């Protein structure tokens, strides 16, 4: 395995239930604010209204685009503005788009299928909207980018994988700049799906807590502008952070459950550390996957206790809900912002330690030492992905 050269991050953008932009999100995290509530975007027939985290999408309805792509556009516009690039100034440059998602990559439309099953010819508009809303393609089209575009559908690790793979495009010289991140919307299909698996909590999510019962779904988008040293050097732009390394590995164990010993996660962590040249004592903190499901949190706690003992960790899903394909990207953005601020928020929802968990998250705002941190994601299919991220120059 080759050691990775750091890839500069020159812009960040985020939209989720914690806030309409990154500044609002960070303010919510450090204020300990969260707003899970019964779904308002759709109706459900469940006896219990499992809480969700809806994003404040202020953009007017853009005909022809799924909500996932609209969330992505808002976060991408923020990240590009933060980087100091306008889409026009990037014309002619090799700009790629690498986006993780789950909902934005599926061809289901409940209304269409329900009508068809009822013996009615449905309007084709929903299918046209799906075909025109591939998230990476939507962003490339909107901003006029002509480099490679890739929509990654690795379930809940998609956003982390997209940032890791986007960074590899810069290192390989495929692109001068890559818009990398993740986006996902809330909807009835996933809501019913996760509820059917009996891994949703009817109260606000409690990552790593003894009384955790499951996840709360969320939605949003997180975007990073990754920039080559050549391009950055020309405009003397300071980096907000760096992608130092990326590791991923499959448990090859079970479709929906993590390996009980976290073997895949351990391999992903080892790869991220090795290719970034970091040792465990250089890690300031870990932004854990921390969904609040009994299995996930048990495995993650065990692995962190084994591999990174004494390193502070937290889950930010208590503020955002589980945003699925967007989660890894949103959490990478939060991780870089926390490195900038040299502190991490409390793991909201955690109050009672679980004797089964050998490591517990931070309970209060914590000052962190060190210039590097890890952000990790676990996913359906046994995927595990880890980003090693570094503090910027500003």
């Amino acid at each position, binding site marked *: *395995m*080759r050691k*990775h050269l750091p890839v500069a991050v020159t812009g960040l953008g985020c939209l989720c239930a914690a806030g309409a932009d990154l500044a609002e999100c960070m303010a919510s995290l450090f204020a300990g604010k969260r707003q899970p509530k019964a779904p308002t975007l759709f109706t459900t027939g*469940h*006896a219990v209204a499992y809480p969700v985290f809806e994003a404040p999408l202020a953009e007017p309805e853009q005909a022809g685009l799924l909500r996932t792509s609209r969330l992505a556009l808002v976060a991408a516009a923020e990240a590009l503005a933060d980087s100091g690039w306008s889409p026009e100034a990037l014309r*002619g440059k*090799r700009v790629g788009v690498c986006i993780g998602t789950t909902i934005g*990559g*599926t*061809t*289901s439309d409940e209304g269409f*299928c*329900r009508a*068809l*099953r009822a*013996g009615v*010819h449905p309007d*084709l508009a929903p*299918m046209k909207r799906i*075909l025109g809303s*591939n998230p*990476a*393609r939507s962003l490339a089209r909107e901003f006029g*980018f002509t*480099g*490679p*575009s*890739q*929509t*990654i*559908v*690795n*379930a809940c690790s998609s956003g982390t994988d997209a940032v890791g*793979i986007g960074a*590899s*495009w810069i290192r*390989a010289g*495929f692109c001068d700049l890559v818009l990398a991140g993740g986006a996902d919307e809330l909807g*009835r*299909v996933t809501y*019913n*799906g*996760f*509820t*059917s*698996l*009996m891994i949703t909590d009817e109260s606000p999510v409690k990552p790593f807590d003894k009384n955790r019962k499951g996840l709360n779904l969320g939605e949003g988008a997180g975007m990073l502008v990754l920039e080559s040293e050549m391009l950055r050097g020309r405009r003397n732009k300071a980096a907000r952070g760096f992608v130092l390394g990326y590791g*991923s*590995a*499959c448990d090859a*164990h*079970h*479709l929906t459950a993590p390996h009980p010993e976290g*073997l*895949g996660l351990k391999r992903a962590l080892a790869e991220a550390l090795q290719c970034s040249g970091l040792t465990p004592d250089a890690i300031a903190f870990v932004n854990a996957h921390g969904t609040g499901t009994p299995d996930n949190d048990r495995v993650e706690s065990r692995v962190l206790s084994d591999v990174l003992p004494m390193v502070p960790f937290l889950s930010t899903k208590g503020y955002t809900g589980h945003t699925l394909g967007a989660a890894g990207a949103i959490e990478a953005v939060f991780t870089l912002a926390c490195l900038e601020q040299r502190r991490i928020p409390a793991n909201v929802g955690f109050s009672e330690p679980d004797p089964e968990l050998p490591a517990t998250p931070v309970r209060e705002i914590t000052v962190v030492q060190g210039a590097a941190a890890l952000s990790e994601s676990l*996913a*359906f*299919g*046994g*995927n595990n992905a880890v980003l090693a991220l570094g503090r910027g120059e500003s």
Partner: protein
Amino acid sequence: MNLDIAISGIGVVGGFGCGREALARALRAGRTPVGKASFMTPEGPAQLPAYLADTAPLERFVAKRELRRIDHFSRMAMLGGFLALEDAGMLEADRSRLGVVIATGYGASRTTFSFLDSIFDGGDALASPTHFSSSVHNAAAAHSSILLKATGPSLTVSQFEMSVPSALLAACLWLEEERVDAVLFGGVDECGELLHYCWQRFFPTATAETIRPLDFERQSAVAGEGAAFMLLTRSAGAVAPLGRIRQVLQGNAEGGVPALPGDAVLFLGADGHRECGAAYRGLPENALLATYAPLYGSLPVGPAFDLAVAALSCRENQLFPAPSGGSRGIGLQPEALAGRSICCLKFGTDGDFGLIRVEK
């Protein structure tokens, strides 16, 4: 970036049959029999011509009981994967550093609709957890990794018609960065009731039973399904009988279609869709080109089948005649590859393109 990635094995399943030899037979015969896909419409049962895949040979690799909860989409992918490993002589090899990269245009669409059916039948509270977990786009990669004990990285890419070149870019980079020793790479897409219904609605006047890929004025696409997999390894100058991948490009033609090597033979991804076909008209008049979609059908991951044909062409050191009406400048008899490179070129909608250059 110049790549040097060896294709070490091929595993294919589609309307033409199962395995490398079945594809080679179809190439020599220049045809694949077209089947019929049945589906429901509000007016009653209907049929459309389609190239359909049979996954029964998967039981040669996996016990039937292990397949009980695995859907058709994942079965096609697994069959393609096992065949590629077998072809490479790697069925018994250690797979701890094997990566899995899968491209798909629409994912497990049948299972997605089965999941919706469970909601329509029983209400929200009776949604099927089995269908839900199998409907995620990366289910095929997950099943493949589990059954193969492949513990390297796993990736699924869904970029409609550009899924294959986009995913291949990642597979090649993994090998170049030495993240893995080998990648099981493939494309998979399936037919299903909803796809056929939408097909009929989107193309109400299209009644073709034969794809005319170079007749760009006519909608002649015939739906296909299947999986085309390859085992990819770093070439490191070693003999690569199935050819080497030297270049993968993907982007939008607004930024300019890359220059093609002057002596390259183009395997076009034109598959009878008029909307995409228009983009191929701009190719040089004297370009040597062939299209093989009439052997496997129209499906988003068609370029994976073109790549498999390119690998077979390298292996046999010859160009297979394209099915009727599907070539320009290439004869009706096999001819020597004669050191030429093969560029698999796919245009999508909105000017998107993907290019994969293969050399013997």
